[in-house]
């Protein structure tokens, strides 16, 4: 039973995480500079630069 409770918690946390990420992507400010170009991606250095700038 406890294993079912654990996976339910993990499932809810995952859904919340995905929802939060989608919300962040949709509500990200429109920005033509480097800062606004890579929301949702952690794939390159520009991401770090963006975070630093923010």
């Amino acid at each position, binding site marked *: 039973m406890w294993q079912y409770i654990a996976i339910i918690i*993990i499932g809810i946390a*995952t859904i919340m995480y995905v929802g939060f990420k989608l919300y962040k992507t949709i509500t990200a400010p429109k920005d033509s500079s480097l800062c606004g170009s890579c929301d949702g991606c*952690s794939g390159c250095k520009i991401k770090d630069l963006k975070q630093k700038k923010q």
Partner: protein
Amino acid sequence: MRLSELRTGEKGIIVKVMGRGAFRKRIIEMGFIRGKEVEVIKNAPLKDPIHYRVMGYDVSLRRNDAQLIEVVSAAEFAKEEKTILGERSIDSYITPSDEELHKMALHKGKIINVALVGNPNCGKTSLFNFASGAHEHVGNYSGVTVDAKEGTFHHKDYTFKIVDLPGTYSLSAYSPEELYVRKHLNDEQPDVVINVVDTSNLERNLYLTCQLIDMDVRMVIALNMYDELEKQGNKFDHESLSKMLGIPMIPTISKTGFGIEDLFDRVIKVYEEEDPILRHIHINYGEILEKGINSVYRTLKNETNIPTSYSRRYLAIKLMERDKEIEKFVETLSNPKEILLKRDKNINHIEELLKEDTETSFTNARYGFISGALRETFEQAKMKEVTSTQIIDTFVTHKVLGFPIFILFMWFMFEATFRIGEYPMGWIESLVGMISEFMRNNMSEGPLKDLIVDGIIGGVGGVIVFLPNILILYAFISFMEDSGYMARAAFIMDRIMHKMGLHGKSFIPLVMGFGCNVPAIMASRTIESRNSRMITMLINPLMSCSARLPVYILLTGAFFPKNAGSILLVLYVSGILLAVLMARLFRRYLFNEEDVPFVMELPPYRLPTGKSILLHMWEKAKQYLHKMGGVILVASIIIWFLSYFPQHSANEAAIDSQIAQIEQTSNGNLTAEQETSLATLEKQKTTVHQQNSYIGRIGQAIQPVLAPLGFDWKMSVSLMTGMAAKEVVVSTLSVLYTGEADDENTQALDQQMKQDKYPDGTPVFTPLVALSFMLFVLIYFPCIATVSAIVNESGSWKWGLFVIGYTCVLAWITSFVVFQIGSLII
């Protein structure tokens, strides 16, 4: 804060006076010097000018001028102190002593804003990294810096706030980076500009210096890569040139750090106005042009609305060059008609006399000035040695050999990625297997165990094993970038790119796409023409990024183990060829306007340092691991949930009863026949469960669309989930196949895929299906981050949706053709 922001009655202590030339000199002479107190007496009725008292004298300044004087006020002091000493009484914030304000002003005055300006690939970013301790991306080709980067470092009681601006050959208004640099210098007014000059190419680099002189910025020149000049045996009397130009020049080698301390010592001297060499000179453009400049200058002089941050002579020169941005600026002044009329009159006169347009005349005059300056100070080695760069270029850019060498290099890169990567990949695979076994043996049965073993370890572990391959690929890409071979690759592709309606320069963002499409799309900003830039962006997703590598390694390793390197090469080259084809179509039907020609440079070869390559690899490893803990972990969990539920169906119950029957009849002693039947039933049960699961239903719903390409429902689902990130294709397959395997049969994913069969006994995966699948992964749907980058860079959702649409259609057609034709042949 700025002096103009002080309210009537407030006092402030002067931190620094910005601006330049006569204005600055006059202000300083009036007593506006660091550490002096200034008080606002009153504002004029229309709030301009403002009446100040400094050193006992009453002075009136225009608001625009007061904006160029930085001060600290009591309010600012209170704000800063509050953050440091939270427990002080409120009174002490309001009434700081003069001594405290003075101290703060002195401290603030020791912050120097520095801007790094120079040609592309002159080593600005290396210098920036060395000075600020940052790890910004450095490459031996132009256009690495696509936006300004900021860093801070301390030296001799001073704080340097450095901004690394994009590389630019001039300060005209043709390309986005030229405008960006110009805007930064005008708007931000850095205290000192470091003009980074590639000493091995003085003539071209000093052209930008001439324009900076016109702008009248306080400047120090870093003679970078000085070792290369010495190696070539050239003699350069930089001290004399320095005196001629009135600009301190310091030899530096930014990759080793040589001269950088001296450079910043000199920046301090310039900032403190203690440098004996510093003076502002005017470049003499010759009698005819100078007459024109002076005539326009006199008209501009009457104009009171020009901010003091602009040099009027610079404005006059730019107007004479027909600079569109400056024309726009002039139109905002009170009397634009008169200024532009005067300008046109002078231009017509000059063009009649010189028989060429004024822009060309100015360019020629600048090169003439440089040539004259270098004639006196620079001596080329008499016996010009053949440099190693020339020797290497004889082969790598040869019209016949260039291509085979490029293809050979690429093949070697992929072969090494696969072969060398096999060993660490095996180690990580065993480690993942051990962890999986440990969890399997030590956890009680239940859904959490299944989630951890099949979902998380299966999904994330299935992808993490490819980390070594990605790092090896990155080591090669870094080598290409740092050594200068990337620029050669673009050079040899130039002719093909031209035929396809693009410039060779577009090839660099395309090759960068092998690493990640997002920065590659941003790097397309360096392409001057909007048409070429748009095409480069739209075809960039066809360049196979490192996220697709796990799919390739998995399938080539399983189905083409002997020719893995060649198959990888075929995939990458297919991407390039399709990109070229699409570029041709886009040029013809979407962006058919003529482009302006532009220059592509071939930087000298440099041996990349091990540190730089390791740094690139480390950065990539961090990003990859970060992705493992983010999108891939989440996707694996979601896929597991969708494949685990719903738990029981009628078909499964029927199989369960058959299993129970066999177990009952055997009474604990299973015959060989019964054991086989049990194994078959177990397998059948798992298959039925997966097909009835949510993900199975989704897969079967979309499978008819992908069936003509040879894909089963698992492949179809993995392609769907791979839209988030391409690695998720592998993690999805991994979760689906790990979940399918029984507890005793924990084979590697590639083995499970090879053994997977349709109910009629035919294999699900064949080499042809694998190839069709890899091509589909290469072409279809760029990841969400890439779409987002395209939308931002193009400024429209339309292009993001267009890329999604065309890549999916193209992927389907390509895989269909390959699979169907392949099926006929094989």
